[in-house]
C-alpha cells in the first residue's frame, strides 16, 4: 500500500538521521578532554569575527610558539558585546562546568564572580610572570580587589575619545584643530554645527549613551570626583552631579533622533559620511576609520573629550582562571602568553588597542595607538563605567535602564538623578 511505502521511507529517514546524529555526537564534542599527547585550554571569548578574531588569532600564534605542548580550543560565542556569551558562561559556572579560561572586562565586572568564588586569585602568577613590574602602578591598583588580583589584561582601550569630521567643522566655521577646554565651550561649537543643519553629536543605542554620560561626568567632576562616584565618596544627589547631568541633557539634545536604533558603527559612520560633526566613542572606532581608508588629520581628527585632557578612561579585556577549570596548567600557560610582551604586541597590533605592559614592542603600531600609549603612561587613569571597569554588572544595568528612560523622555532630570543614586547606593 502506498501509505506503508511512505511511512517506511519516513521511518528510514528518521532512523538514518538518528544514526548520523549518533555518529556526529560521539565525534563532534569539542570541549571534551580527548587525550592526545599534551594539555589543552578551552578559551571562552566573544571574539568570533573581524579585528577581534584577528587579534585572537595573532595571540594564538604566539601561544603556539611559547607553549607548543598545549592545544588551544576556541570556545567563542559571538554577539552583543558578549551578552550571549555571558549568559552561557553564567550557566556553565553555576552548573560546575567552567571553561579553562574566560574573557571578562577587567575591574568591577569581575566582582560577581569573585563573590561567588568562581575565579581564582592569580596574584602569584603576576609575581611568577613578572607582571607586577611590567604593568603600570595605576592599572594594578584598579585590578586589585582586597589585596588579590583576579585576571590578566590583554589590552587597554580608552573610552573618552572624540572623533570629528574636519569638513563638517570647517563648514560650521570651526577650526578642526581647535581644543575645547570644557564642556561649555564644546556646546558652543555644537551650536555652530547645528546652525548648518548637520548633526552636532552622533550617538547610538543606550550603551553608547552611557559611554557619553561617563565622559561628561568625568569632565565636570574631574578624575577624583568621578572615581568617588563608584567608591561612594561623591554624592550622587549633589548639585555638581546635577549640573553635570544637565550638560548631558544638553548634549543629548544635539544628537540624532534615530539613535536608539543604531549600533555604534552606524554613529561612527555618520562622521565618516560627513553627516555629523562629533562622536564620542572608545578607541576601537579607529578601526572604522581605517577601514574607510581615512587618514588623520586630513579626513578625521580625534582628541580627548573636552574637560578630560590628561585623564585616561580605561577599560581592558582580560582573562581569568576559573575555579575548577578542567585544565588549570593549560589555563596558566594561556595566561602567561596573554601577559607576555610578545603576546601583547601581537594581539594589540592586530586588534587596534594598546598593550597593558609598558615594555611591549610598539614601534609598529599606528599613529593613534602611539598617542594612546603615551597618554596611558603619563595621564591619570580612571575606570570606565560603560565597559565594566568601574561597577559590577547589576549596577551598570540599572544605570543603563535609567539612562534609557531619561533619553527617551520617560523620566525627567530629577527622577533620573534619583534613579542613578539608587543604583549606585546598593
Amino acid at each position: 500500500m502506498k501509505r506503508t511505502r511512505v511511512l517506511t521511507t519516513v521511518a528510514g529517514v528518521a532512523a538514518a538521521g538518528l544514526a548520523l546524529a549518533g555518529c556526529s555526537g560521539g565525534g563532534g564534542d569539542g570541549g571534551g578532554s580527548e587525550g592526545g599527547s599534551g594539555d589543552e585550554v578551552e578559551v571562552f571569548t566573544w571574539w568570533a569575527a573581524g579585528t577581534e578574531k584577528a587579534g585572537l588569532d595573532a595571540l594564538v600564534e604566539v601561544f603556539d610558539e611559547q607553549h607548543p605542548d598545549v592545544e588551544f580550543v576556541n570556545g567563542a560565542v559571538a554577539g552583543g558585546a558578549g551578552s550571549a556569551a555571558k549568559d552561557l558562561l553564567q550557566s556553565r559556572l553555576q552548573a560546575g562546568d567552567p571553561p579553562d579560561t574566560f574573557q571578562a572586562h577587567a575591574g568591577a565586572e569581575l566582582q560577581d564572580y569573585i563573590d561567588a568564588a568562581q575565579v581564582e586569585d592569580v596574584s602569584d602568577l603576576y609575581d611568577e610572570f613578572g607582571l607586577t613590574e611590567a604593568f603600570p602602578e595605576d592599572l594594578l591598583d584598579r585590578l586589585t580587589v582586597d589585596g588579590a588580583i583576579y585576571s590578566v589584561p590583554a589590552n587597554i582601550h580608552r573610552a573618552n575619545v572624540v572623533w570629528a569630521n574636519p569638513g563638517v567643522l570647517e563648514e560650521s566655521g570651526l577650526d578642526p584643530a581647535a581644543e575645547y577646554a570644557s564642556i561649555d565651550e564644546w556646546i558652543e561649537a555644537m551650536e555652530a554645527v547645528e546652525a548648518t543643519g548637520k548633526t552636532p553629536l552622533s550617538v547610538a543605542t543606550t550603551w553608547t549613551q552611557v559611554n557619553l554620560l561617563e565622559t561628561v561626568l568625568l569632565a565636570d567632576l574631574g578624575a577624583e570626583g568621578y572615581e568617588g562616584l563608584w567608591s561612594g565618596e561623591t554624592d550622587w544627589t549633589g548639585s555638581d552631579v546635577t549640573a553635570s547631568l544637565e550638560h548631558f541633557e544638553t548634549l543629548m539634545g544635539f544628537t540624532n533622533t534615530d539613535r536608539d536604533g543604531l549600533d555604534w558603527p552606524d554613529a561612527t559612520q555618520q562622521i565618516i559620511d560627513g553627516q555629523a560633526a562629533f562622536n564620542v566613542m572608545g578607541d576601537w572606532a579607529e578601526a572604522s576609520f581605517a577601514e574607510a581608508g581615512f587618514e588623520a588629520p586630513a579626513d578625521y581628527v580625534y582628541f580627548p573629550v573636552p574637560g578630560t585632557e590628561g585623564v585616561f578612561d580605561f577599560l581592558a579585556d582580560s582573562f581569568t582562571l576559573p575555579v575548577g577549570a578542567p585544565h588549570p596548567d593549560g589555563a596558566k600557560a594561556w595566561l602567561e602568553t596573554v601577559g607576555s610582551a610578545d603576546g601583547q604586541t601581537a594581539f594589540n597590533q592586530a586588534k587596534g588597542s594598546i598593550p597593558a605592559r609598558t615594555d611591549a614592542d610598539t614601534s609598529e603600531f599606528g599613529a593613534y595607538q602611539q598617542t594612546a600609549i603615551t597618554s596611558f603612561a603619563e595621564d591619570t587613569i580612571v575606570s570606565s563605567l560603560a565597559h565594566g571597569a568601574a561597577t559590577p554588572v547589576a549596577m551598570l544595568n540599572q544605570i543603563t535602564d535609567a539612562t534609557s528612560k531619561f533619553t527617551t523622555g520617560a523620566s525627567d532630570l530629577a527622577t533620573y538623578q534619583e534613579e542613578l543614586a539608587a543604583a549606585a547606593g546598593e
Partner: protein
Amino acid sequence: MSTTALVTTSRPAPPSGTVGSAVASRATWRTIRYVIAIFFVIIVLIPVYVLLVTSFKAPGDAAPTRAWALPQEWTLDNWKAAWTTLWPAILRSFQMVIPAAIVSSVLGSLNGFVLSRWSFRGANIVFAGILFGMFIPYQAVMIPLTQLMTGAGVPSGVPSLILLHVVYGIPITTLIFRNYYASVPHELVEAARVDGAGMLRTYWSVILPISIPSFVVVLIWQFTNAWNDFLFAVFFASSQNGPVTLALNNLANGAMLQNYGVSMAGALLASLPPLIVYILLGKYFVGGLMSGSVKG
C-alpha cells in the same frame, strides 16, 4: 469506508438562471484575488529585497543609509565567506532537525489522536497539562535545565538538541494534531471501532491517511523552529558541534565592527533549507482527503 482518493476541490455549478453573470463575476473575483495576492507578495518581499541587495555589497557600501540602493559594486565575496563558514554547520543542522521534527510530529499525532478521538475521562485535563508546556519561559529555566542535561550526561551538540527539540516540541505538535482531529467526524472512528479495530489499528487505517495536511503544518513548524533556534544552541552546543544558528551568529555578530553584507548573505543562506522544505512539503497541501467520509 472512507475513500483515499485524492480529489481536487472544484466549485459546484451555480443556480442555472445566472450562468452568464456568474461566469463574469467568477473571472472578476479571480483577477481580484490575483491582484491582492501579488500586492502582498511585494509587501512581504520588501525586507527580503534589502537582505538580498545588501548581501552583494562591499563593507563600506553596506550601510543603513544605503539600504535601498543597488550595490555600487556587485561582489560575491560575502556569499563565499558565508558559505565557507556556514556549510559544516548547515550539515549538522540537518542532522539535528530531521530526526527531531519527525519524532516530535509522530508523537504529536499519536497524542492528538488519543486526546480527541480515542478519548477518556479527564483527557482534556491531560491535554491542558501538555499544552501548558508550550509556555515555559526558557530563559528562566536555563540554569536548572543545564544542570539537568549535564547530570543526565547527554553529549553536547546534536544529540542534546535533538532531545530538547523533541521534548519541547511535544506540546505544540499535540495541540495542532488534536485540534485538527477534533474536526474529524466521530462517525469515522466509530465505524472502525464497530468493525472491531483497536486503538492503534484505528489510528493506522482511519486517522493517519487523512493526517497529511496536518503533518505538513507540523513538520513545517518543527523544522523551522529547530532550524532557527538559537537559545538551546548557545547553551547546549559549541561552534564546533553546533547548528547553523551559532555559526551564523558568530559570523554576523562576532566582531565589534559588523560586516553587514556577510551577515545578510549568511542569513539568506541559512534560510534556504527551510524554504526548500516548505516547497517540497507544499505539494501535500491537498484537499478532499475526507471526501466521501460522511454518508448522507
